[in-house]
């Protein structure tokens, strides 16, 4: 019994210590962010690596999610004679919820894991150490541009996801299900609000981008410098950031849309 308690205590302490370390880490990185204004090239490179290279998976997923959404919603809405409102329902689901969340989950799998593995391997091959010995702070040269790149890329990706999802929904709705194309767009225009819906979705995706990139760069930087350590860091990145996204999504949704009902 005492042993179990002791183990539980040790586990909790270890977790707390790591959490503290990750906060100190991010604080030091954030302090270095303004320096990037003088070297925008470093951030652009990361937006390419994190954002542009994630585009194929985001676009394909967005297209199919939009198409499936239109099909599923149509089947229910047609029972209530509300099938002409398919446009706003697809758009709201994507812009408020599925766009930011699914993009963040895919982002964690595609870009987060790559970031953690890259940084972990840089640590294992002494690249970070050698940088320190060259009087270059890896937090500012390696981590800060990646964090900035992730935070900037994620809302752009989520916007693309939603846009292509809405287009996919349109193709299915008008081509397959016979919904009037004018109704699809005009109803959407009338019922989707820029601030309540679109901006709130963007805020969500910025928060998710921040959290996923933070977890990824910290896990990579904190990895045990062996192949096994890097593998673990990569797995932890995907698992922890997915859970963080889902948990945060509930909190953000409650804050943003909780009092509408």
């Amino acid at each position, binding site marked *: 019994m005492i042993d179990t308690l002791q183990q539980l205590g040790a586990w909790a302490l270890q977790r707390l210590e790591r959490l503290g370390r990750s906060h100190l880490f991010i604080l030091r990185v954030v302090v270095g962010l303004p320096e990037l204004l003088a070297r925008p090239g470093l951030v652009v490179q990361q937006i390419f690596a994190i954002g542009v290279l994630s585009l194929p998976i985001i676009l394909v997923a967005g297209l199919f999610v939009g198409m499936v959404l239109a099909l599923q919603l149509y089947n229910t809405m047609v029972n209530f004679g509300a099938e002409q409102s398919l446009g706003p329902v697809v758009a709201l689901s994507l812009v408020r919820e599925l766009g930011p969340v699914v993009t963040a989950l895919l982002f964690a799998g595609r870009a987060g894991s790559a970031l953690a593995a890259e940084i972990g391997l840089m640590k294992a091959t002494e690249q970070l150490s*050698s940088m*320190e010995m060259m*009087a*270059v702070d890896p937090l500012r040269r390696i981590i800060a541009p990646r964090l900035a790149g992730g935070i900037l890329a994620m809302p752009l990706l989520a916007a693309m996801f939603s846009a292509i999802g809405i287009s996919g929904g349109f193709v299915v709705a008008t081509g397959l299900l016979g919904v009037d194309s004018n109704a699809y767009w005009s109803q959407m225009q009338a019922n989707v609000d820029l601030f309540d819906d679109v901006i709130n979705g963007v805020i969500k995706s910025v928060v998710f981008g921040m959290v996923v990139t933070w977890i990824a760069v910290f896990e990579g930087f904190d990895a045990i410098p062996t192949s096994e350590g890097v593998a673990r860091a990569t797995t932890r990145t995907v698992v922890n950031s997915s859970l963080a996204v889902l948990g945060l999504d509930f909190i953000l949704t409650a804050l943003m849309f909780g009092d509408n009902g």
Partner: protein
Amino acid sequence: MLDETPLVEIRGLRFGYAGRTIFDGVDIDIQRGKVTAIMGPSGTGKTTLLRLIGGQERPDAGTIRIDGANVPALSRRKLFELRKRMGMLFQSGALLTDLNVFENVAFPLREHTELPEIMIRDLVLIKLEAVGLRGARELMPSALSGGMARRVALARAIALDPMLMMYDEPFSGQDPISMGVLVKLIRELNDALGMTTIIVSHDVNETAGIADYLYLLSEGRVVEHGTPKRLQESGSEWTRQFLEGLPDGPVPFHYPAPDFARELLELPSP
């Protein structure tokens, strides 16, 4: 006037890691302009010593002075200033894998100077010429052999003309030709650029061949130090075992274990 004080002065160095004592009162002087080798069996913390000198680890006790400045007591900013005057060659080379050879050597210049591109180009080519790899400047690190990677890393380490150059096991895993090239380079660079060199190694012949002074470390202490000639004539059994590579001696062949005959007769516990 020639400065006779040591460039690096280590006094009473104590350092432990994960409950294990690595250094237990180590004193080392590194003389200016000389090649000093720190040798000892694997696991004696030679690499850790370089990390301590470079300020990447902090000692539990003792001082490490470089050109008068006590490294463990320096602020991060001052430590980074000092590191600009130090070069270190890592065992793996530690080249940045996303940059080609040219950009790797240019990296410290781009980070720390405002030099125009044309000057950076010239400086990089000078450094690459010094290590014989000017022709390889477009290659990526993945296309280099181990020996070439180490030479590129060497060119990068001397890019800012450091006063102190540190080598971590520069000869391990090298074929005889690469080894010969590195041995020659380390000595020539030290003399031509007026640097001070520390080599950490257990390759006795190569290291003793170019070092002006040797320190032998074992079990957290300096066992003996002196010129290579003096150490080769040393009466210490341990020193002889290490320098001549004898399989048994004061450092036993066997890892500590219970009596062999008794262990064979014992029934294995279930």
